[in-house]
């Protein structure tokens, strides 16, 4: 049972539109439900605010855009034809003020002659500020629906899938192909954007192998599932990418609807396919005539769909305007449902065939006839004026069903890199050669005879050749001839309904020389609306071809870009939002720091303790206290995030010599050295320390922020530049944690815990703390005697606890990153990201003396380039000492405020030992400017601080404090 009688058997569903309550039947689209309730005015168009109704029944709908849902689920610009009504659905009209019925924006329609395509390029001159004022109004007037302002309460998932065969579209062609493949044992996925399978079978009463179309389709889907195939409904294949990857967006909730238990609104499938069959159907073309956009003017197939699938008759008195047989099918469907067909206007001079003959017996059929204008009353269609064999004739009608030809849906085929062929009979582009093996079936391939479509699809799916018995009361469909666009048309004949692009606009663009399709499109905005030109592109092309006097394929073709239908951003983002917007790396000792009252500092994906403020302390006070604690007693800091690599093997030294610009090969066992690394262009990109643990075993540490880059670099040098070396590189940072103990009492604390003599400065040894074997490196970053203690990750808590207790006993405690920063500034140690900014040579950073003159490391060649080799004119690392209060970090170094910068303050810090502010800076020719007075000028912060330039070393210049 189909049609209005069947409708009443479906359960009631309640929804609201613009605040008014309505009833729908389960399974209705919002468009069907509105039509059933006699609501024909649904929207206002983008530019002229013309009253618009429902034109189509699927995703190609250009006009009936509404806002669905509220709060964070509000979805503006939702096609009423593409939302299934659910209980409680709230929809609102948009782009209309004060109301849909009386929309003041409609004045734009009266001004239409003033504001043709591209008018804004020709006016609104003057200074930019003036344009900004016009722009404010233009922006307000543009933009269709209002955006949500709240965060999205629902989730979106991503899911990967693999299949032998992906079939897109569950019309008869897609079903037949998927069924054949599934029953042949292939892993099959069938995806359908609609909520039901069946496609064209939902609107046309055919039988297949003796079964009515819709039950046949449902049975086929069932059999596919039984054979292990996956059938997804409300699932749109929206992108066909390289590598036979197809993305499919599955709606788990309708727009605006609260999702079920999964709390997921949509799921994005990434399907890597063996083969892809595209059975995506075809889209009906509208006709061009004045007033073709009025509520009540609809696509012919859509009308049939509303009648047969939803049992909704969109009008009582219908005119059919058609260029091929399709209009006749609609005429019969309407008549069957009790509507009166007042005229069939057939654009063909001599329509013939069985269907036409049968229609002539029932309806007034006019040959060589086409609509030329419409009449409305109260925003809805009241009559149609037609030209019949050269004479004008008027019909009273509240529905005009138009059939202007078929446009196969070739989007995915094109996205996949396929080419198109031109079919002269249907005046349509059809899929041509493919690049990724994709193949199109059914209407998407320009086919029209169902029995042949089924047989071809069956074979394409891998089934043995067979015939399908198809009965169609209208007889087999003929290829859909396209309507011819008249050379001249009075009035506004819309081509792009949503963006209000008329034939006149296209003609204007042509006149002005915007003649390539892309220029035309961009100048007029044709095809750029949310319907992506599904109903407009062919008409525009035809017009362009007409103007050029060439065939359509010569007029060109615009590209088809993903997504096939507009896709919710949340679906692309998937779970990577909110707390998952980026990974969080927690220190192994997170809880221990937390217990000490740490405040946190983001550092890449890590969160590291910034300071441990005591009650009443600001972070700044806390870090200064902590730094002074280190200078005077002892402190403990978590340095687990440092990049650490173990480099082992007979050629370990040889590898390090290639990576490091300093001498490392001659390092004695048990000793360590400061080192740095260059990029191939000769500039410093990271620094750290290198230790010889055993004859053939080294440890390399480098910066936290550069850890991934260093891992990559080591792997590159080892595997690409020096594949013959007998050496292994292991990233220890993933296994080990470390704490650094620093201060005048550090030696005592360490020795008490280990019972061993502490290693000398830049020596290392193995010992044990808290029953755990640890490696101790005596390196000082703070300028005090200091030790980095490395322990396996799962043992660090005990080691840290023991070190902390002992440090506290010695009058010390934990210190954070800010204190560490203060300490290192006093010592002039550089940091990647501040002083090491990827633009400096070793000499710029005062490290020139350490570079191996003989080369033999990455970057040595780059360093020979004259501008790098000559220090003159380069920025050098210097120390700056404030002569008046706090030093603004990042400030420019200038002779006087207002001058051009000569350098900038890279890091600033309060003095730990003593008072006042100091900093590090990069200054042009800085090495020779010690003693000069300059200004640290921060215009953005309104600060201007006189500073004295000096060496980048403020504390213990002899290094007496960390040597023994």
């Amino acid at each position: 049972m189909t049609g209005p009688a069947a409708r009443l058997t479906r359960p009631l569903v309640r929804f609201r539109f613009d605040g008014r309550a309505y009833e729908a039947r389960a399974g209705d689209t919002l468009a069907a439900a509105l039509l059933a309730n006699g609501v024909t005015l649904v929207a206002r168009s983008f530019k002229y605010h013309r009253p618009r109704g429902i034109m189509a029944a699927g995703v190609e709908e250009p006009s009936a855009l509404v806002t669905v849902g509220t709060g964070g689920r509000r979805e503006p610009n939702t096609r009423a034809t593409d939302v299934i009504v659910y209980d409680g659905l709230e929809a609102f009209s948009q782009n209309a003020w004060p109301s849909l019925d009386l929309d003041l924006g409609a004045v734009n329609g009266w001004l239409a002659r003033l504001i043709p395509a591209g008018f804004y390029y020709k006016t609104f001159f003057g200074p930019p500020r003036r344009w900004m004022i016009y722009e404010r109004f233009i922006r307000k007037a543009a933009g269709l629906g209002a955006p949500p302002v709240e965060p999205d309460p629902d989730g979106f998932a991503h899911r990967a899938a693999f299949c032998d065969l992906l079939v897109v579209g569950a019309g008869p062609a897609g079903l037949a192909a998927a069924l054949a493949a599934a029953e042949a044992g292939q892993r099959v996925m069938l995806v359908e954007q609609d909520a039901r399978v069946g496609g064209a079978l939902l609107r046309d009463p055919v039988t297949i192998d003796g079964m009515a179309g819709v039950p046949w389709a449902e049975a086929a889907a069932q059999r596919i599932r039984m054979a292990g195939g996956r059938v997804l409904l409300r699932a749109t294949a929206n992108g066909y990418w390289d590598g036979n990857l197809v993305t499919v967006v599955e709606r788990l909730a309708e727009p605006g609807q609260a999702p079920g238990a999964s709390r997921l609104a949509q799921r994005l499938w990434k399907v890597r396919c063996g083969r892809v069959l595209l059975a995506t159907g075809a889209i009906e073309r509208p006709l061009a005539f004045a007033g073709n956009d009025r509520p009540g003017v609809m696509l012919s197939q859509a009308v049939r769909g509303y009648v047969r699938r939803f049992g909704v008759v969109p009008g009582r008195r219908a005119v059919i305007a058609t260029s091929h047989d399709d209009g006749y099918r609609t005429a019969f469907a309407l008549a069957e449902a009790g509507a009166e067909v007042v005229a069939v206007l057939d654009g063909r001079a001599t329509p013939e065939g069985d269907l036409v003959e049968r229609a002539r017996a029932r309806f007034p059929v006019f040959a060589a006839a086409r609509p030329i204008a419409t009449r409305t009353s109260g925003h809805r269609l009241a009559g149609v004026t037609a030209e019949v064999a050269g004479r004008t004739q008027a019909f009273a009608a509240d529905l005009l069903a138009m059939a202007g030809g078929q446009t196969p849906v070739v989007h995915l085929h094109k996205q996949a890199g396929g080419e198109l062929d031109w079919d002269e009979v249907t005046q349509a582009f059809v899929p041509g050669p493919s690049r990724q093996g994709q193949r199109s079936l059914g209407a998407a391939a320009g086919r029209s005879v169902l029995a042949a479509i089924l047989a071809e699809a069956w074979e394409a799916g891998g089934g043995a050749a067979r015939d399908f018995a198809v009965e169609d009361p209208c007889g087999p469909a003929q290829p859909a001839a396209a309507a011819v666009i008249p050379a001249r048309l009075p009035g506004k004949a819309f081509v792009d309904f949503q963006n209000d692009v008329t034939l006149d606009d296209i003609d204007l663009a042509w006149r002005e020389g915007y003649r390539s399709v892309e220029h035309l499109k961009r100048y007029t905005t044709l095809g750029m609306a949310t319907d992506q030109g599904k109903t407009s592109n062919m008409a525009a092309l035809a017009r362009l071809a007409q103007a050029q006097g060439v065939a359509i394929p010569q007029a060109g073709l615009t590209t088809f870009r993903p997504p096939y239908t507009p896709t919710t951003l949340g679906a692309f983002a998937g779970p990577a939002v909110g707390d998952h917007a980026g990974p969080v790396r927690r220190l192994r000792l997170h809880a221990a720091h937390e217990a000490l009252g740490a405040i946190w500092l983001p550092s890449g994906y890590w969160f590291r303790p910034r300071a441990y403020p005591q009650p009443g302390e600001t972070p700044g006070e806390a870090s200064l206290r902590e730094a002074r604690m280190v200078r005077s007693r002892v402190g403990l800091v978590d340095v687990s995030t440092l990049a650490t690599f173990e480099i082992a093997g007979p050629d370990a030294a040889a590898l390090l010599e290639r990576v490091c610009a300093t001498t490392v090969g001659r390092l004695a066992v048990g000793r360590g050295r400061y080192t740095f690394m260059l990029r191939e262009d000769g500039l410093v990109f990271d620094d750290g320390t290198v230790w010889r643990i055993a004859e053939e075993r080294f440890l390399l540490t480098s910066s936290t922020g550069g850890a991934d880059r260093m891992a990559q670099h080591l792997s590159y040098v080892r595997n690409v530049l020096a594949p013959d070396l007998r050496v292994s590189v292991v990233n220890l940072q993933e296994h080990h944690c470390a704490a650094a103990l620093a201060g005048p009492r550090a030696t005592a604390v360490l020795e008490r815990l280990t019972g061993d003599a502490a290693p000398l400065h830049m020596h290392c040894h193995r010992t044990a703390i808290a029953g755990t074997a640890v490696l101790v490196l005596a390196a000082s970053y703070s300028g005090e005697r200091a030790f980095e203690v490395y322990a396996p990750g799962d043992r660090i808590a005990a080691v840290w606890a023991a070190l902390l207790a002992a440090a506290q006993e010695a009058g010390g405690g934990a210190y954070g990153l800010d204190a560490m920063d203060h300490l290192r500034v006093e010592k002039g140690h550089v940091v990647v990201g501040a002083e090491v900014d990827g633009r400096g040579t070793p000499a710029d950073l005062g490290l020139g003396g350490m570079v191996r003159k003989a080369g033999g490391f990455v970057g040595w060649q780059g360093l020979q380039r004259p501008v790098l080799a000559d220090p003159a004119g380069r920025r050098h690392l210097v120390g700056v000492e404030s002569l008046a209060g706090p030093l603004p970090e990042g400030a420019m170094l200038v002779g006087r405020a207002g001058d051009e910068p000569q350098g900038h303050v890279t890091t600033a810090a309060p003095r730990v030992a003593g008072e006042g502010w100091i900093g590090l800076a990069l200054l042009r020719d800085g090495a020779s400017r010690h003693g000069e007075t300059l200004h640290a000028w921060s215009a953005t912060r309104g600060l201007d601080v006189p500073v004295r330039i000096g060496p980048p070393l403020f504390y213990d210049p002899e290094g007496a404090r960390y040597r023994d």
Partner: protein
Amino acid sequence: MLLIDCPHCGPRAQEEFGYDRTLDSLVRIEDAPDAAMAALYARANPRGEDDEIWRHTFGCRGWMVLRRDRVSHAILSVRPLGPEALP
């Protein structure tokens, strides 16, 4: 998304891999400065095929040489990067 047939792991999604450089832009440590800078900075950058060094960074971490068409995105061959694959 490209599908790269890692010599070690088999076909894997491109997002697991990282492009490093073209084979002909390899700078060897032994190269003289002028030759090194020429390799580094003077790139063929063909609108067609080229040999490229990639790494299966989020997989086996191995290095390989892809022969790839930069217009069609077809991958014509994948070789493990051993001494024999290097110029």
